[in-house]
């Protein structure tokens, strides 16, 4: 999420305008999936899916394994052909174009570096393939080596490199041909956490500097949130929600999305009022009365779910002024200390558990709230969302 501040100014120019071509009806999509279905035998990997990706966008395909995100990416690269539908790139239909004629390059999850070639030859491979002049190849390869800071390793073979170095070579190789689209298949999966986080910011920086379109496949929601302009969350071959990291986190459109991205409390209830843009829910599991601002998704009498992130639930030892709305009481059941934050699990009288996160703003000498304390949980009308599916 912190990464978004880096990408916010990417529309270039002195004005820090938000980069959001997807909100502009005049913008032409760069990559288009039109009613694409892909089946493998009985298994439908991608199910009648349509999607637009815009030029210079950093787009993330996110989802659990087997959701079809990799298949979708492999259809852009040309390793899979859609069973039906069209994949367009820059106005050109890609269906039937073999991978070696597509203006896209991919960084493979396993890196797929050629083991019999040194770093230099790996990066030069695609350029040689294009019949580029020798001097130009040398210039371009050196440029790429400088970009990934591997000048000293040009003569090394892949097996003489560390995981992080291999990842850089793979990145340099896939960028060398200046592809129209760079496809990244779980590019950081093999790196340890620290290196992965560093590399995420490097990727963002690189994408902004090169002004290229990046499509990343990942199952790591934090990674998607950090690097992407927009995220498409997939499930069973369909896109469940496409939105910016902020929207997908704060305005999930379903329980599936809310649950997949980050941590969340979900309370089941019934809509008893929708007056003035505020939905009122009677929650079954907790007995709480919830009021939440909404823009008209939930109708009177609907079965609905109130979803609220743990960091938006305040915890206190004293009851609030009006304990009848947006408040529940319970007992501290468990505390998860993560260093920067502590996660409190509060067991309500009905047996349901609600999570609340507290930022540890001081060194932990003694906890003001601890196990078995009777506490009150409260939240504002704008804290959570009401979900109808």
């Amino acid at each position, binding site marked *: 999420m912190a990464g978004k501040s880096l990408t916010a100014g990417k529309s270039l120019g002195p004005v820090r305008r938000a980069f959001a071509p997807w909100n502009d009806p005049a913008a032409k999509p760069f990559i288009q999936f039109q009613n694409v279905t892909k089946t493998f035998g009985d298994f439908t990997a991608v199910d009648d899916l349509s999607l637009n990706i815009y030029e210079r966008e950093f787009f993330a395909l996110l989802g659990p394994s087997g959701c079809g995100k990799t298949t979708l990416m492999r259809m852009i*690269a*040309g*390793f899979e052909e859609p069973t039906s539908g069209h994949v367009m790139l820059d106005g050109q239909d890609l269906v039937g174009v*073999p*991978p*070696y*004629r597509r203006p*896209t*390059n*991919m960084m*493979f999850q*396993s890196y*797929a*570096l*050629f*083991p*019999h070639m040194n770093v230099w030859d790996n990066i030069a*491979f*695609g350029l040689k*393939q*294009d019949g580029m002049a020798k001097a130009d190849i040398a210039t371009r390869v050196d440029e790429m080596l400088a970009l990934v800071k591997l000048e000293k390793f040009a003569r090394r073979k892949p097996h003489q490199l560390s995981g992080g170095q291999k990842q850089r070579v793979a990145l340099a*190789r*896939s960028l060398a*041909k200046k592809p129209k689209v760079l496809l990244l298949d779980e590019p950081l999966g093999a790196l340890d956490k620290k290196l992965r986080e560093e590399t995420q910011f490097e990727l963002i920086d690189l994408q902004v500097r090169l002004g290229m379109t990046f499509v990343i496949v990942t199952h790591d929601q934090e990674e998607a949130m950090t690097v992407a302009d927009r995220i498409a969350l997939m499930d069973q071959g369909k896109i469940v929600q496409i939105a910016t990291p902020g929207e997908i986190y704060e305005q999930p459109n379903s329980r599936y999305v809310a649950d997949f991205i980050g941590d969340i409390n979900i309370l089941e209830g019934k809509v008893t009022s929708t007056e003035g843009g505020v939905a009122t829910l009677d929650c079954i599991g907790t007995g709480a009365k919830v009021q939440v601002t909404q823009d008209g998704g939930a109708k009177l009498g609907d079965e609905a779910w109130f979803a609220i992130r743990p960091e938006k639930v305040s915890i206190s030892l004293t009851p609030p002024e009006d304990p009848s709305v947006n408040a529940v009481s319970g007992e501290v059941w468990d505390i998860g200390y993560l260093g920067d934050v502590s996660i409190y699990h509060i067991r309500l009288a009905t047996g349901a558990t609600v999570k609340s996160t507290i930022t540890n703003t001081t060194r932990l000498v003694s906890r003001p709230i601890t196990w078995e304390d009777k506490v009150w949980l409260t939240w504002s009308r704008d804290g959570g969302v009401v979900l109808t599916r």
Partner: protein
Amino acid sequence: MAMTTTGAPGRGWLRWLVVAIPYLWLIVLFLAPFLIVLKISFSTTAIAMPPYTPALDLSAGLGALWEQIQEFTFDNYIFLTEDSLYLQSYLSSLKIAAISTFLILLVGYPIAYGMARARREWRPTLLMLVILPFWTSFLIRVYAWIGILKPEGLLNQMLLGLGVISEPLNILPSTLAVYIGIVYSYLPFMILPLYATLEKLDETLLEAAADLGCPPIQAFWKITFPLSIPGVVAGCFLVFIPAVGEFVIPDLLGGSDTLMIGKTLWAEFFSNRDWPVSSAVAVVLLAILVVPIMLFQNAQKKASE
């Protein structure tokens, strides 16, 4: 853990035994016979039993042994250089083995490649089919080729029946039949190492090549083939080395004009009963083969680095 470390007392002899067994095997079954052959190659033919002298009789005492050793001669080796038959046999053997190795590579590579690219569940069956001929005696399989290749054999009958030829082909006996026999017999030794290398090849490398603009046929020469070279080298040596000394195939399928050192050696040993000269032939053959064997071991060492 402590039981297996070098410091464990009382277990040292067990370690030595484990290490010693293969060495003992090599000493008894390879080095000792070779030394006997080497010794005979320095002897002179004699009408006696054994048919050479000196016989190195240990019962006569060490002094007598030394006298016998002084009778050793290089005459047999000099004789090999004097009669051009031997040089021709060596050269012809090397040529036949080299051409056969090349032909086997040409036939074996596509088979191994096809096996490695076959569906996973078929691969054990295909592998089984390659090994299956070994269940029949080698000799019988070579005899079977006589049945196929002879003038009234299966091949001629089929070709005559189809009207492709009007006269039976005289393939047997000939050098061509020897090539057919060697290619057939040694093919599995090429396929197995090639298959082992090709099967391990990571297919995403080919996807990466395609992604970078390389069409499939070029990708074969730039990725698949270079990465299969360890298998090619292993297969070629496994075929070439025994093919040089091959005796059964040229004896059964080859004509009088097919010169191979294995045949020459056999004739020297059994027809001429000249043990010393045939021993010298064998020692020189070994010396010739040591070169490719060392090359092979070097290649193996490089591959494992």
